[in-house]
C-alpha cells in the first residue's frame, strides 16, 4: 500500500510492464526482514521456492532445535501449517508430535552410517548375509542393505511418494532421512535423486493450503502464496488474475459456489431445455418435441401422428375446434400447469440476470479495445501546446471503469443466486428477501448509472477540446471515479453485512473489494539469508523476467489508519500517463 517513488530511482527500474494499464505498482515493503502489514501475497518462482519454504523451516528448526530434514518431515506431515504444528506440540507434546509425523530424533551414533566392514549382518529384505559396511541403519534403528534401500527409494519416488518415504520395516512409521535417500539414490540414479529433491521442494506448494499453483495455461511456472485469508483474488506476475480459492477467474462479488453454478448454468443448455418444456410437447410416436404454432388442440407432428395438445396423448384425426373424436382429457391437472408456470418464470428470471451480466461483460470487452484509442488521444493531447500536462486522470478513470464493469457484471449472477431459491430458499422469508433485494438493487442501479456516465465521459474526444473543456471532463472523470469506488465498496459491505451476514450458512465467502484492484502478488524476496543486502535491487531474483518489476526502493508511507478496508495510499507523484492512483481523493488530484 505504501509506496512513494523517489524520482531518481524511477528510470533505473523502469520496465515496459509499467505501461500496462493495470500497472499499479506493487508494494513490497517487506522485502527485507521487516514484517509488514501491507500486501503479503507473493509470487513463488522456481528460483524462490527454496527461500519460501526456508522461512517456515527455519521457524520450526529454531523452535524445536531440529535439523532441517526433520523440520521438513514435520511440516510436510502438517501440510506446512506452522500454527497447526505448534498447536499439536502444545496439546500432545514433542514425543507425540514427532511420532505422528514419523520423525525419529533419537540419534544413534551410527545412524545413517555404515557398520564396520569386519562384521556381517543379515538383510531382512534380500535375506542375504552381507558385510556391515554395505548396510545402512535409519534413525528408527532398522538396518537393511544399501541395495535394498535404494530399490525401495526408487520404487517410492516413482510412485510419487517422495514426500513421505517410510522405513522398510513392517509397521515402522518413521520417515527416511532425506540425506540418506539422496545419497543412495544419487549413486545409481542421479536423475531420480533430482526428481526426489524437486518433489520435496514442491511439497511446499502441493501440500500447502496457503500456496497454490498459478492456473495459467500454458503454465507460467509460478505459485502464489497468500497470508491469512484464502478467500481473495490475486494477480500472478504472469498477468493472470484469478480467485485464489477456486482458481477460476476472479469473480467477486460472487462466491465461488455461485460462480461455479453460474458458469455451469450458462454452459449447459438447461435453459434451452426449460424452453422446450414450456413451449413444446413430445410427439407420442416419434418423441420429437413439437411446438404448437396456432390452431386448435389437435396437433400433428411431422411424422404424421396426431395428438392432443392438452394431454399429449395420441388421437385420431377427426376433430372439431372443441373436441377430438373419441378423445377426452378434460380433467384439470393443476400439477402440470404449475410446473409449466414455474419453468417459465425461472427461465425469464435467468434471462433477466443473464442479459445484464452479458451486457456488462460485453461492454468490458469493448472498452478493453477502447483503451488503445483513448491512450492514443492521451498522447495526442500531450503533444499539444497546452498548460495541461498530466493525463493520469484518463488512465485512472479508465482503470476504474474496467474494475467497476467487472464488479457490475459479476453482481448479476450474485443477485440471481442471492435472491433466488436455489441456494437460500429456507434462509429468508419472502419479505426479508424482498427488502434485501431492494436494498441491493438500489445500490446496483446507482453504481450502474455512474459507470455508464464515466464511460461516456471517457469516450469524449478530449484531444480535440479546448483546455477549459478538458478540465471540465477531467473534473467529472475524477469525481465519478471516486464515487464509483465508494459505491463498489458499499456494495461489497452490503453483501457482506446485510445480505450474507445474517444467514445461517456461511459457505459463501466473498473475496474482499480492493479499491486498487486485484492484488498483484509480489516477488518473494530471496535475500533473507546470508545474501542480505541494503539495496533493494539485489533482493530480487534477477531472472524473474516475466514479472512486472516493481522493486523500487520504498520509503514507507504511513499505513492506512482510517479503518477503511481498501487501504489508501499516501500521496505520490505521478509520472506520465502510465501511472495512476485510484485512491487519491479528488481534491488532492485537483491540486496537482
Amino acid at each position, binding site marked *: 500500500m505504501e509506496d512513494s517513488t523517489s524520482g531518481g530511482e524511477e528510470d533505473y527500474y523502469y520496465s515496459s510492464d509499467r505501461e500496462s494499464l493495470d500497472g499499479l505498482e506493487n508494494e513490497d515493503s517487506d522485502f527485507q526482514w521487516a514484517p509488514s502489514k501491507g500486501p503479503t501475497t507473493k509470487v513463488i518462482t522456481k528460483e524462490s521456492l527454496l527461500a519460501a519454504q526456508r522461512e517456515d523451516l527455519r521457524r520450526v528448526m529454531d523452535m524445536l532445535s531440529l535439523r532441517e530434514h526433520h523440520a521438513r518431515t514435520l511440516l510436510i506431515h502438517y501440510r506446512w501449517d506452522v500454527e497447526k504444528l505448534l498447536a499439536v506440540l502444545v496439546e500432545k507434546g514433542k514425543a507425540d508430535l514427532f511420532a505422528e509425523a514419523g520423525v525419529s530424533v533419537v540419534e544413534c551414533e551410527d545412524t545413517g552410517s555404515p557398520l564396520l566392514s569386519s562384521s556381517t549382518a543379515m538383510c531382512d*529384505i*534380500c*535375506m*542375504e548375509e552381507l558385510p556391515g559396511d554395505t548396510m545402512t541403519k535409519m534413525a528408527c534403528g532398522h538396518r537393511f542393505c544399501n541395495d*535394498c534401500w535404494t*530399490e525401495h527409494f526408487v520404487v517410492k519416488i516413482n510412485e510419487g511418494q517422495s514426500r513421505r518415504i517410510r522405513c*522398510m520395516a*513392517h*509397521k515402522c512409521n518413521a520417515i527416511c532421512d532425506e540425506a540418506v535417500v539422496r545419497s543412495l539414490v544419487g549413486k545409481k540414479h542421479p536423475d531420480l535423486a533430482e526428481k526426489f529433491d524437486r518433489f520435496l521442494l514442491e511439497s511446499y506448494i502441493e501440500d500447502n493450503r496457503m500456496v497454490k499453483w498459478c492456473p495459467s495455461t500454458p503454465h507460467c511456472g509460478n505459485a502464489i502464496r497468500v497470508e491469512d485469508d484464502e478467500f481473495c483474488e490475486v494477480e500472478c506476475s504472469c498477468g493472470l488474475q484469478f480467485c485464489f480459492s477456486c482458481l477460476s477467474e476472479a469473480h467477486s462479488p460472487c462466491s465461488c459456489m455461485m460462480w461455479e453454478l453460474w458458469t455451469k448454468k450458462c454452459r449447459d443448455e438447461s435453459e434451452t431445455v426449460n424452453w422446450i418444456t414450456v413451449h413444446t410437447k413430445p410427439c407420442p410416436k416419434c418423441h420429437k418435441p413439437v411446438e404448437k404454432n396456432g390452431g386448435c388442440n389437435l396437433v400433428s407432428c411431422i411424422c404424421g401422428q396426431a395428438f392432443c395438445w392438452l394431454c399429449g396423448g395420441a388421437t385420431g384425426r377427426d376433430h372439431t375446434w372443441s373436441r377430438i373424436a373419441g378423445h377426452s382429457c378434460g380433467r384439470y391437472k393443476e400439477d402440470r400447469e404449475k410446473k409449466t408456470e414455474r419453468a417459465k418464470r425461472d427461465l425469464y428470471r435467468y434471462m433477466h440476470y443473464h442479459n445484464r451480466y452479458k451486457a456488462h461483460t460485453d461492454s468490458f470487452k469493448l472498452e478493453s479495445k477502447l483503451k488503445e484509442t483513448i491512450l492514443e488521444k492521451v498522447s495526442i493531447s500531450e503533444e499539444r501546446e497546452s498548460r495541461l500536462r498530466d493525463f493520469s486522470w484518463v488512465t485512472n478513470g479508465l482503470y476504474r471503469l474496467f474494475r467497476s464493469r467487472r464488479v457490475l457484471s459479476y453482481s448479476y449472477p450474485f443477485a440471481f443466486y442471492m435472491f433466488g431459491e436455489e441456494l437460500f430458499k429456507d434462509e429468508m422469508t419472502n419479505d426479508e428477501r424482498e427488502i434485501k433485494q431492494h436494498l441491493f438493487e438500489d445500490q446496483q442501479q446507482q453504481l450502474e448509472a455512474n459507470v455508464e456516465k464515466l464511460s461516456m465521459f471517457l469516450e469524449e474526444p478530449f484531444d480535440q477540446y479546448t483546455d477549459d473543456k478538458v478540465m471540465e471532463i477531467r473534473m467529472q472523470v475524477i469525481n465519478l471515479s471516486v464515487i464509483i469506488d465508494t459505491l463498489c465498496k458499499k456494495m461489497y459491505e452490503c453483501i457482506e453485512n446485510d445480505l450474507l451476514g445474517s444467514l445461517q450458512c456461511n459457505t459463501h465467502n466473498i473475496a474482499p473489494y480492493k479499491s486498487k484492484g486485484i492484488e498483484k502478488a509480489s516477488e518473494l524476496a530471496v535475500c533473507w539469508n546470508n545474501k542480505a543486502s541494503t539495496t533493494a535491487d539485489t533482493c530480487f531474483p534477477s531472472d524473474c523476467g516475466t514479472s512486472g518489476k516493481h522493486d523500487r526502493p520504498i520509503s514507507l508511507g504511513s499505513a492506512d489508519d482510517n479503518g477503511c478496508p481498501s487501504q489508501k495510499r499516501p500521496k505520490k507523484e505521478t509520472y506520465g500517463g502510465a501511472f495512476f492512483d485510484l485512491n487519491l481523493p479528488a481534491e488532492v488530484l485537483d491540486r496537482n
Partner: protein
Amino acid sequence: MIDFARVQKELQECSREKDTSGIKVSPKSDNLARLTGIIPGPLGTPYEGGSFEIDITLPDGYPFEPPKMKFVTKVWHPNISSQSGAICLDILKDQWSPALTLKTALLSVQALLSAPEPDDPQDAVVAQQYLREYQTFVGTARYWTESFAKASSLGLEEKVQRLVEMGFAVGLVRSTLEAVGGDENLALEKLLSS
C-alpha cells in the same frame, strides 16, 4: 526385476514350516513369478475345515512392491469378492512393507478370514449380510466352504441326492443345507420339522 533369490529363500522357508503354519506356497511354472498359495480355514470360523487356494502374481518390483493375490477358491467373506476373489487387505496395498514375505502376507489373509472388517468391504452384499443377519452369513459362509473349499465337495452333491431321494424338492434341500452349513442330519431335521 523380481528378486528371485529371495523368492527361492521364501519358498524354502515356507516348505520348512508348512507343518506348523499349514500354509503352502508353490510355483505354478518354473519362472517363480506365478505362484499358488494354500491356506487352511481358521479354526472356529465358518471357514474351518476348508482349504483355500490363492493365486499369487509377483510384480517386477517384488519385494518392493506388494504381491498380487486373489482367491481361486470361492469364498463368502465381506472383504473378499464373491465373484472375482479379489482381496481387500491393507498390507497388499499401501501398507505393504518389503520386510513382509509371501508367508506373512498369506498369514494376514488367513487372519482376515477370522476377523472380517465389514466396514471396509470388498463385497457389499456379503458385508450387508454380515452386519444385518449374522446367522445367515455364517450359514452361507459355511455352505460355501463346504461346497467349494473341501476336497470332497462332491460330498455335498451326494447329500443333496440322498435328501432328494427322501422326497424333498431339490431347491428346498439346497437352501436348507446351506442354512445349516452343509450338515446333512441337521438339514434332515429341519426339513422334517418344516
